[in-house]
């Protein structure tokens, strides 16, 4: 006669009927929020690390702004009113002579033309 093996009901894990109630996971909303915040902080940290690394990279060309060279403020002496009137015409004629462009540049020609 075949022997029926019965499970001991005192050992619930071995019960094929699985009568034990499933453990209900209590969803704690505050914990989830905390997790999300933590993840966001980690992502931001990683992103800032990457950005700072890229910026410090030696391959990146940086344009150096030259230090401004101090220049003397030009004295305003072109003002005709501050030059005495008897000399104004003489100054004017000298300046006009300076400005006149007497240079007529020669034409660029092809000396091989016709060959």
């Amino acid at each position, binding site marked *: 006669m075949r022997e029926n093996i019965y499970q001991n009901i005192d050992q619930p894990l071995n019960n094929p009927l699985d009568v034990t109630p499933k453990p209900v996971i209590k969803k704690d909303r505050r914990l989830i929020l905390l997790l999300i915040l933590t993840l966001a902080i980690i992502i931001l940290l990683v992103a800032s690390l990457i950005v700072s690394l890229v910026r410090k990279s030696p391959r990146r060309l940086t344009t150096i702004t030259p230090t401004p060279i101090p220049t003397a403020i030009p*004295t305003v*002496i072109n003002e005709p009113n*501050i*030059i*005495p009137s*008897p*000399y104004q015409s*003489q*100054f004017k*004629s*000298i*300046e006009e*002579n*300076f400005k*006149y462009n*007497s*240079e*007529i540049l*020669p*034409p660029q*020609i*092809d*000396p*091989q*033309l*016709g*060959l």
Partner: protein
Amino acid sequence: MLGLLLGLVMAQEASLPDQYRQDYSFQVSEYQKKYIDYIDKKEIYTKYRTITSKKDKIDAAKSALIARNTMLKSYLLALRVNFDSFKTLSGITTQKIQIELSRWEDWCQEQNLIIDNLNSQNDISSWVDDFQTKYIPIQTVIYTALTQNQINQRLLSLELIKKLAENLKANPQTGDLLNDWLNSLPVKSDLVSAKLKNAQDLTQTKQLSNRFINFYSNAKTELNEADRYLQNMLSDLKAVAIKLNQL
């Protein structure tokens, strides 16, 4: 009609050197047109090698050469007339250059008659060979004239500055302090003269028989330095004049 009249009035108002400059600019554009036409005809001949394309090429070459001579002549004329603006102080050197320029103007004119009678490629080639040897003295006189004209312009500036300095010195208000300032002018004046002399010496650069040695950039450097001293002298005089106004 009104526009034409206005144009005529404006043309009359333009100075003689300016008119010659305008004529030269017109000749430059004419030459460029003829030159492009010649290049086109030459390419067609190189491609097809026909008798007609060869004739077209020779005709285009003659037209372009005539246009080039006309342009060169108008340039030399503009350069010669431009001398008149400042030649009062330059003496015999300017006159010599003007005669030389005039001689090459005539030569360009004569060559146009010769080019008109060239009928084969061989004739044209031999004329071009001759032109290449003549172009070295032409360039020499061109750059000598350009340099001398600018020397003359600066000599005139120097003369005007000296006259102004004398006038300022003659003013009874000019005290010892200002006189000291004015006394430094002869040193700068000597420096200007030295720079202009250097520029003039460069025009005497010995030329090779087959190649033009261009001295103009070096002469320009000397002229620019002379300009610097002249500007400096003028600034000093302005300072003296302003000081006089404040006394």
